[in-house]
């Protein structure tokens, strides 16, 4: 975000501009690095302190004569008399965007946000490499699938991991970002059973608030009466093998599944009230 907010920034209200303290700037004479501290509000309207470090350096270019000539023009208008070099109030170098030309499918969010490496609320996490339920940066197959889609690409290209074997691991990139995805929801988690996705296109129900004593057969018994069941699976803890109170039932017929929801949702079972709903493919789940 800009250090100075023009008050026509239509994404924000003017009111908030008053509450935040003014940005400050300090330059370290030894390193020549300028540190700018500014303030902004995040999604939840919390005050966020933004610290940006900038360095000025001289860059040489070979250009044609006319271009060189123009470089030498004196500044005019509002900039009259100003020193050479970009004025920080008017010019800011933005963060690295990872821009890639590739055919875009309409659904996928293709480009990385320049600012946010935090998960966008409401969008499910899909690893771009293997489509697992985790961040691309944390994909366990980074090395094999070898992609540098940096979620947080700040300074990535400058810092080279000297001698890093799997030099693909974004150093510290996973630091700030990364919603914690519980193991049960990661790709492949869960007691050796393929979960969270109904087999083929079978209509599948998710049953939560299930008694931990209920086993596959019990669940099958419960739902058999609505129609033929293609498959039942009870989600178990990987180590203890204990039921997590969650099960999936795939019916052969969709109307049987619907009937089951109607009748079983809210029904009592073993001193718990069952919750029966459609199971959604991971991509759509909020």
């Amino acid at each position: 975000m800009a250090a100075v907010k023009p008050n026509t920034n239509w994404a924000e209200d003017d009111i908030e501009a008053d509450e935040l303290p003014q940005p400050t700037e300090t330059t370290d004479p030894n390193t020549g690095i300028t540190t700018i501290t500014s303030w902004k509000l995040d999604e939840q309207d919390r005050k966020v302190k933004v610290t940006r470090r900038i360095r000025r350096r001289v860059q040489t270019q070979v250009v044609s004569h006319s271009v060189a000539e123009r470089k030498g023009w004196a500044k005019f208008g509002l900039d009259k008399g100003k020193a050479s070099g970009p004025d920080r109030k008017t010019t800011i170098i933005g963060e690295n965007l990872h821009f890639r030309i590739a055919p875009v499918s309409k659904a996928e969010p293709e480009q990385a946000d320049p600012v946010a490496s935090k998960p966008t609320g409401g969008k499910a996490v899909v690893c771009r490499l293997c489509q697992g339920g985790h961040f691309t940066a944390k994909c366990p197959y980074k090395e094999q699938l070898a992609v540098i889609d940096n979620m947080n690409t700040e300074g990535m290209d400058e810092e080279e991991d000297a001698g890093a074997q799997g030099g693909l691991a974004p150093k510290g990139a996973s630091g700030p970002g990364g919603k914690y995805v519980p193991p049960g929801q990661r790709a492949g988690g869960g007691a050796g059973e393929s979960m969270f996705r109904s087999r083929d296109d079978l209509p599948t129900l998710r049953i939560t608030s299930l008694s931990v004593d209920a086993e596959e057969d019990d669940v099958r018994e419960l739902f058999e009466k609505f129609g033929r069941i293609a498959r039942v699976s009870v989600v178990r803890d990987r180590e203890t093998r204990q039921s997590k109170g969650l099960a999936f039932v795939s019916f052969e017929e969709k109307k049987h599944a619907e009937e089951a929801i109607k009748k079983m949702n809210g029904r009592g079972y073993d001193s718990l009230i069952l919750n029966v709903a459609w199971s959604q493919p991971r991509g759509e789940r909020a």
Partner: protein
Amino acid sequence: MKPIILQGHERSLTQIVFNFEGDLLFSASKDSVVNAWFTSNGERLGTFGGIKGDGGHNGTVWTVAVDSQTRFLITGAADNTMKLWEISTGKCLFTWDFLTAVKRVAWNEEDDTILSITEQRSGQPSIIRIYKINRDEPTQQTTTPITTMTLSGSKATVALWTPLSEYILTGHESGKVAKYDVKSGEEVNYIDDAHSGEITDIQGSPDGTYFITSSKDKTARIFDSETLEEMKVFPTETPLNSACIAPLRPYIILGGGQDAMSVTTTSQRAGKFESRFWHKLFEEEVGRVKGHFGPINTLAVHPQGKAYASGAEDGFVRVHWFDESYFRSRPFGDLEPEVEV
């Protein structure tokens, strides 16, 4: 690629243009100021207007055009004037007065003639005027156009010179695209329903033999300059405000208004308005660049295809220099048309 964010306007951008060598970028805004920027590092060269009494505009600057020698600048504004500026000093050399706002200006290939479109309003029709420019004595300009085209039908919103300065291509509020002979002022060709909505921008190919139009009808189209034959169509989901054709690589860049989708999802403040890259030949989208906080109003591309810039409602201009991967990209395998510079 790292965008350079130029923050020199207090209100939304209306038009941005690169100069011929691509080292300067000029931005016009509703804040009545035109800025000149060095594109390599984002340093601002100066402003045209902005200081009281310096001869600047008094209202939204709708349009800006730079000659190929980067000597003179023409601007048109809502204060019913068109001004000629000296770029090296920022001095206003001449002002033309009209009855209505000037919506579009453009230099011809030889830098000796300009066109201007004045707005249709309260009794005044939309008029296109062609003026000869005196380069030797810039402060002495003629106020008599060599040709005047008074439009009877839908008002012209945008216009473009054809190569060799023989014709003008126009885009209209109705979606009509027309071609006028510069000398006679006659409409020699037109397509009434080229677009189904107002045409918001018209930009030419590097050699001018075809051009692209963007429209509120959510599409952009490429037409042959000679025949006005529609060559390509790019349908999007949002009304488009600007389109340009990138040299060197077969891509076009489109920018526009509110994405219906993005409104609903998150309340993120990060700039989510995107410039969109499409493959010119295959009519498929190939990339998006986010960053603006408001709808993109204007796009311009470096004449050698090395960079592009976008200006939006948020008052920011973002200059992007393409990196290696852009030039190497082959999104559809090795199928490539001939390279255009």
